[in-house]
């Protein structure tokens, strides 16, 4: 090649220098038509720094504004993992709060960081190191914060797993009224308010609840707890189930913190790319009924605490560029699947597949994402009359297992069959025929097994799970290492069901719905 270049007379090609002017002279920012473009988001759309920032910020605020879910003055917990997306989210909130009054975000944020080092293979020294870094960033951000170690799951109360109905807040009208009354309050002590937000850093010590709690909870977990946690995760046979379990426990912890400190919303930093991957993953995990909960803008499955995903319009690429261009700090911590081979889990497989396909067909992610917006949260053919069916013990979605639907019953049956522990043939001998023959009545044997299940906590937990969680629990040989609150709540629910079954025959039924409601 060099020779060819030499043959074609260097002087002429050097004279008019073609390569250098390309970026600078010809291309202008597609928005303002004058700025120097620094980033190409989609093919052909080059943005300058300022326009990219405006575009990014607008998307974030539009997502919140469009949905009108977060009321002024509401306490919002930002779930921060230290990674790029959630860091970007925290940063957006920080900037949104410090803007001039007309455009200011009006909610009251707090940040939660969950230290998962114990299950991600970090040594105590690494964890301490990470925590130092985390605290440094949290201090610059200046919101009240909660540093929680994942080990805390062992001291959660069973009530975490309960659904607390939220008083209906109404719609449009209620939101408008709330904004108006908030603004009126603001106008009177306008100056005072300014002062209240400004010393956010010192605010850590002054307000009553959260900050002090944060300080106490930041204590390192006991060695026994750490050991119990790693024993739990070591006992899980597949990485897929580990990732799901981690996510479940993390959600419970965040929910607990939100409830105890009076946060009514939790924000997570799921980007559009992440959500598309999550959607496909959930699909493959048998969570088809809950896709809208798992990936929608808002997730009301817990009732009183609503999970919100304000970054769901941003692609991972935009997040990465924004963080780089505007110096958003983030912490690097290994995740549970770091360094795992691509085929190790459904999550990893789906991620690799989607990203690979996205490279070939640039609209893959957005296509999946847009399809997800057409999903409904209600079950497929539910009458709106019975919203409060029994909920899954772990993921807290309405159970998607019933005997009526043949295919589902069959799917549940197969998972049920293999869960039958082989070492107890005599006790199970009586119920086994009904299970293996089980034409259409897989649930039947569970009900028969009611009383004898008292000595089998596994069956007790399993029967309270949704399809996807049942499949995951298959990868746990023993449910004993699970944190006590899960087992306690399972027992409690079972007793309640038992009691209501006892009184069932004395009840005079007027309709079928009541019988259903009684089961829950």
């Amino acid at each position, binding site marked *: 090649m060099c020779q060819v270049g030499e043959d074609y007379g260097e002087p002429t090609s050097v004279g008019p220098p073609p390569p250098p002017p390309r970026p600078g002279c010809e291309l202008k920012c597609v928005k303002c038509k004058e700025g120097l473009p620094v980033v190409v988001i989609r093919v052909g759309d080059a943005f300058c720094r300022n326009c990219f920032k405006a575009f990014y910020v607008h998307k974030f605020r539009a997502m919140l504004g469009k949905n009108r879910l977060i009321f002024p003055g509401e306490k919002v917990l930002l779930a921060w993992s230290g990674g790029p997306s959630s860091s970007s989210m925290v940063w957006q909130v920080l900037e949104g709060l410090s803007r001039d009054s007309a455009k200011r975000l009006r909610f009251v944020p707090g940040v939660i960081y969950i230290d998962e080092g114990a299950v991600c293979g970090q040594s105590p020294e690494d964890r301490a190191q990470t925590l130092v870094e985390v605290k440094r960033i949290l201090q610059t951000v200046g919101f009240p914060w909660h540093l929680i170690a994942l080990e805390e799951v062992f001291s959660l109360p069973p009530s975490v797993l309960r659904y607390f109905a939220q008083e209906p807040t109404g719609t449009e009208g209620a939101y408008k009224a709330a904004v108006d009354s908030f603004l009126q309050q603001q106008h009177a002590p306008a100056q005072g308010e300014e002062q209240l937000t400004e010393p956010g850093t010192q605010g850590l010590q002054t307000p009553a609840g959260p900050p002090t709690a944060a300080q106490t909870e930041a204590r390192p977990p006991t060695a026994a707890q750490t050991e119990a946690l790693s024993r739990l995760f070591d006992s899980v046979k597949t990485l897929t189930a580990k990732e799901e379990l981690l996510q479940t426990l993390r959600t419970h912890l965040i929910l607990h913190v939100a409830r105890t400190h009076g946060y009514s919303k939790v924000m997570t930093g799921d980007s559009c790319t992440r959500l598309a991957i999550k959607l496909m993953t959930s699909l493959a995990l048998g969570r088809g009924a809950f896709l809208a909960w798992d990936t929608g803008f808002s997730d009301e499955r817990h009732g009183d605490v609503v999970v919100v995903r304000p970054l769901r319009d941003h692609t991972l690429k935009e997040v990465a560029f924004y963080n780089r261009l505007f110096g958003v700090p983030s912490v690097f911590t290994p995740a549970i699947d770091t360094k795992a081979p691509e085929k190790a889990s459904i999550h990893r497989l789906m991620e690799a597949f989607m990203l690979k396909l996205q490279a070939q067909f640039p609209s893959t992610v957005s296509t999946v994402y847009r399809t997800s917006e057409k999903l409904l949260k209600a079950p497929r053919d539910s009458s709106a009359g019975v919203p409060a069916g029994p909920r899954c013990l772990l993921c807290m979605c309405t159970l998607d297992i019933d005997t009526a639907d043949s*295919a589902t019953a069959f799917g549940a049956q197969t998972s049920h069959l293999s869960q039958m522990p082989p070492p107890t043939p005599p006790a199970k001998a009586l119920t086994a025929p009904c299970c293996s023959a089980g034409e259409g009545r897989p649930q039947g044997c569970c009900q028969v097994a009611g009383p004898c299940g008292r000595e089998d906590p596994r069956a007790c937990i399993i029967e309270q799970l949704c399809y996807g969680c049942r499949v995951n629990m298959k990868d746990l040989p023993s449910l004993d290492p699970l944190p006590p609150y899960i087992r306690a709540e399972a027992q409690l629910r079972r007793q309640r069901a038992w009691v209501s079954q006892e009184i069932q025959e004395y009840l005079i039924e007027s309709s079928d719905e009541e019988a259903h409601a009684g089961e829950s």
Partner: protein
Amino acid sequence: MPAPQCASCHKARAALRRPCSGQALCGTCFCAAFEAEVLHTVVAGRLLPGAVVAVGASGGKDSTVLAHVLRELAPRLGISLQLVAVDEGIGGYRDAALAAVRRQAARWELPLTVVAYEDLFGGWTMDAVARSTAGSGRSRSCCTFCGVLRRRALEEGARLVGATHVVTGHNADDMAETVLMNFLRGDAGRLARGGGLGSPGEGGALPRCRPLQLASQKEVVLYAHFRRLDYFSEECVYAPEAFRGHARHLLKLLEAARPSAVLDLVHSAERLALAPAARPPPPGACSRCGALASRALCQACALLDGLDRGRPRLAIGKGRRGRDEGGTPREPGRVRTPVPEAVPTF
């Protein structure tokens, strides 16, 4: 190490592990369980006693297993079976497959009817279609034509033999691939329609059922192995480099990571809840042949129309402009969502 004991009868040595559950079973118990599960699906799919069931037979593993199982179950269900095979007119492939179907029909003493594209569709064979579409570029759209036409041919064949139901050999893997694909290309309409055990037969079409829908491909092959079924296992000469390949590859990986993934996907597909707006409009009737259609012409007629007019790609692919030029005007009120620039055409 000797093979473990069968987990079901506790007598014989296990001969296999069930792919979906990992249970070690002997051949007899596995076949019995497999048949029981198909029976369960069939009962749920509402195949009533007295039904005349047309079995779509291609000679491949799925339809062979389907025909065999249904033949075993037929006395219990009180149904009578009719094999219907479709001759697509693919030289060097279909003839051998049809020979396999004929052998099966003779061995099982089941009536067999063969319907040919050539007779049904005004002389078009798949080979002719392939020649016609090759001129317009990609030949992988062959499978689009073939799939649509085969569905029509099967329906015609079923009517010919006086069937009341049509059953096809789609297995769980097929269903799982389809739901993955529909998500990847954003086909909300198909997602809303999909799942379930077939269609109850709306708008005059025969009710359809997929009895093997909950059996993974591995189980189907295992069943064929233990029953020593003779089937034809060559790939069609027009087998595509199409997008289904991506989905199939992904599914294989998922299955390796978690054996129940196929069934989990089928479960998901059944439980999807789509917004009413995403559901397809209630189907009407084709203005030409009267078959079920969501537009003015049914897809088969639209494809044939394009072929006859020498523009085979009219009814498929992006921007179906000119599709209805010569035919009836396009239905008003059906708004198509714009297709983004780089959606892969599958």
